[in-house]
């Protein structure tokens, strides 16, 4: 198969085990979207995306091109090889049903079909359950296309919605179970429920060259790639 393109409908969720060497491109089709994402190792579901290690290893609060997305075991699930937006959040988690109902009103599937107000927390619960995982396995997730900045006192602010067509490209560095949803960011103050589809494209990634942006981003990432090489020894 050459590649695959699809859309996650507004409020929708999706998961797939992606093989090492796959390239995943996410697109904020209409602008102002949000894409929640979590990673697990399909061979050991206790190994999962670790937001603190990802931030700490790269001395960053935001995610963008050049960054690697780390597991709790010192390995890299995926690296960010391209990004047209420049600042993505990984500390705010998901909105839940109460948040969504209080901001935009409760809507259910019985009455509103696909125009219901799904939330990121429940969307992840659905996908987690497919792999025998539950609420206790939900780690701090990534929110692509959501820029969350802080002031000097640490107050959080969701600013600068992503322009239509913004995209981010990930290269999968080890076999990874990827969960994602297209639900609103928990800090969204939109007046109506943001109904934003996320484009998703899969392809085969180019091999990692010696001049690779992510490999050379910092010494930490070079060591992260070395840990992955050890993991794949003999593979």
């Amino acid at each position, binding site marked *: 198969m050459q590649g695959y393109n699809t859309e996650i409908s507004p409020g929708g969720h999706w998961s797939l085990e992606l093989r090492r060497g796959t390239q995943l491109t996410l697109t904020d089709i209409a602008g102002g979207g949000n894409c929640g994402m979590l990673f697990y190792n399909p061979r050991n579901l206790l190994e999962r995306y670790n937001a603190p290690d990802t931030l700490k290893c790269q001395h960053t*609060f935001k995610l963008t091109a050049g960054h690697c997305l780390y597991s709790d075991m010192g390995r890299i699930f995926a690296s960010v090889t391209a990004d047209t937006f420049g600042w993505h959040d990984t*500390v705010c988690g998901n909105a839940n049903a109460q948040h969504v109902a209080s901001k935009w009103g409760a809507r259910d599937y019985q009455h509103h079909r696909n125009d219901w107000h799904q939330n990121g927390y429940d969307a992840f619960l659905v996908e987690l359950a497919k792999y025998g995982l539950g609420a206790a396995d939900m780690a701090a997730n990534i929110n692509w296309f959501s820029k969350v900045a802080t002031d000097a006192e640490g107050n959080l602010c969701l600013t600068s919605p992503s322009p239509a067509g913004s995209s981010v490209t990930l290269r999968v560095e080890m076999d990874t179970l990827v969960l994602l949803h297209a639900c609103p960011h928990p800090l969204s103050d939109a007046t109506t429920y943001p109904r934003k589809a996320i484009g998703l494209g899969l392809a085969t990634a180019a091999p990692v060259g010696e001049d690779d942006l992510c490999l050379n981003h910092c010494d930490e990432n070079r060591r992260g790639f070395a840990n992955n090489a050890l993991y794949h020894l003999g593979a």
Partner: protein
Amino acid sequence: MIKESQRHVDDAVFKQVVDAGDYYLGKVNAGQTFRILDLEGNQAADTLFFSAANPAERYSATDTIREQGNVYLTAGSVLRSNENHPMLEIVADTCGRHDTLGGACASESNTVRYDLEKRCMHACRDSWMLAIAERPEFGLSKRDITHNINFFMNVPITEEGGLTFADGISGAGKYVELTALMDVLVLISNCPQLNNPCNAYNPTPIEFLVWDAPNGV
């Protein structure tokens, strides 16, 4: 926010010194208040909380910072669970700011942060692994070991979105006090980190003290 405690050490119903590299795991009942005391200064107390009734419900950094709209923890902060329930409130704090973004040191992340051959050094997540292995009666497993609080750590965010590990703002005798809003398990790794200039490469002991609710509630 600096807020001093009115509690007296002599009234504490429980006291235990926890050396660097050791863990503390115990139950604190709703209404009880505990203090984590930085005995010698610039130490990091890497802490996780669980609902004693259901350890799958536990401290959630994302729920806590989202609900308070701020990344730092101090007096007045309500610590929330992964089910968005209030678990504990910080009622006194002589340090002023605590980190919940930086997570805990681990053998595996040490290989990335410092050197590929630093993995054998002691680390907080190893202390937690020992705790869950040695104390099976608490019903914890690796899936419960998540994004924690680093009491006494200062991890400021820059305007450009950088994350910096600044010198500690703690000092000898500084403390943080929390009142439990539900029965909780407290799991602390007193950080053994020897690679971090924040503690001058010298991890030191902390003390854990518990007080009953004023009217025995």
